[in-house]
């Protein structure tokens, strides 16, 4: 049985919980802004002007980072819970990390392009 120390696992475990907690707040806020403040909130112009404000930009960047991590770390956990996933543990770790980074970078690109 493998007993090699894993640095990734405890960090991932703690961050999964922390990001989960922060997401509850940020996604509620996101939902509130886009669906409950006004009927116009989803119009293109509204979206563009909202994203142009620095505080919203920062909030969205943070949300993006947190969601991407939580999602792909969750996927990593699901895969590692299986025999096949555990056999290819290094690959699973590498690919999910890569996916997380790609999602984050692409999101940032969108955020700063509009």
């Amino acid at each position, binding site marked *: *049985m493998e007993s090699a120390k*894993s640095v990734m*696992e405890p960090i991932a475990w703690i961050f999964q919980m922390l990001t989960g907690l922060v997401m509850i707040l940020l996604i509620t806020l996101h939902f509130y802004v886009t669906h409950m403040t006004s009927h116009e909130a989803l119009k293109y112009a509204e979206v563009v002007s909202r994203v142009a404000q620095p505080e919203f930009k920062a909030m969205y960047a943070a949300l993006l980072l947190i969601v991407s991590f939580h999602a792909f770390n969750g996927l990593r956990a699901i895969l*590692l*819970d299986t025999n096949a996933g*555990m056999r290819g543990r290094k690959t699973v770790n590498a690919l999910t990390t890569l996916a997380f980074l790609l999602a984050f970078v692409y999101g940032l690109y969108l955020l700063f392009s509009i």
Partner: protein
Amino acid sequence: MVEFKIRRYDGEKSYWQSFEVPAKRGMTVLEALYYIKENYDSSLAFRASCRMGICGSCAMKINDKPRLACETQVLTLGNTVKVEPLDNFKVIKDLITEFDGFFEKLKAVKPHLIRKDDNYAEPKELLQTPEELNEYYVFTLCIKCGACYSVCPAAATLDEYLGPAAMTAAYRFCADSRDEGQKERYEIASSPNGVWRCHLAMECSEVCPKNVEPAKAVQLLRRKTAFSMLKSLLGW
């Protein structure tokens, strides 16, 4: 008369077989199995020993839930009783499942007191207050029956997962005031097949016949493991 539907396996094929057992108040499922073995079909294979819920031999799936056959009253189960081997274990014959791997995992977590001053010839009396004893006592009650492991969703998909019973044993020793082996055990628990595979489905605590609360033990172990790993990582 109660109908017993038993899932049997003869090494090649698996099939259901039914028996009618005259049940009276006080009869346990184990007694019914003996009744079947001694009167209808003596090839029926199952494990049993103490018949008082302490040896851990007779855990099996009774009406879809893992229970100890010896302490399950037949009359609480209705007119039909379905008996199957435990899930997540390989079936050897009828209700008998392979436990070698389960005990290997137990051994892997070093479930024994680790002390630097271990002296076989002249042991000294180590003190422990009742409060210190209560810190871990409930976790010593595990009878290694495998019920927790049979319902664990992580064990269902990952064969090498240490499982609730082994990690409960690990935590039981880590929480013992006489023990000095926490660090060793945290390292074992933090292996990829260890505490990280538990996601608190807590079904183990639901089915434990001794109310050991393995989920709580795993959660406590994980918390201690994580903080111990992070501490050593940060050089504290």
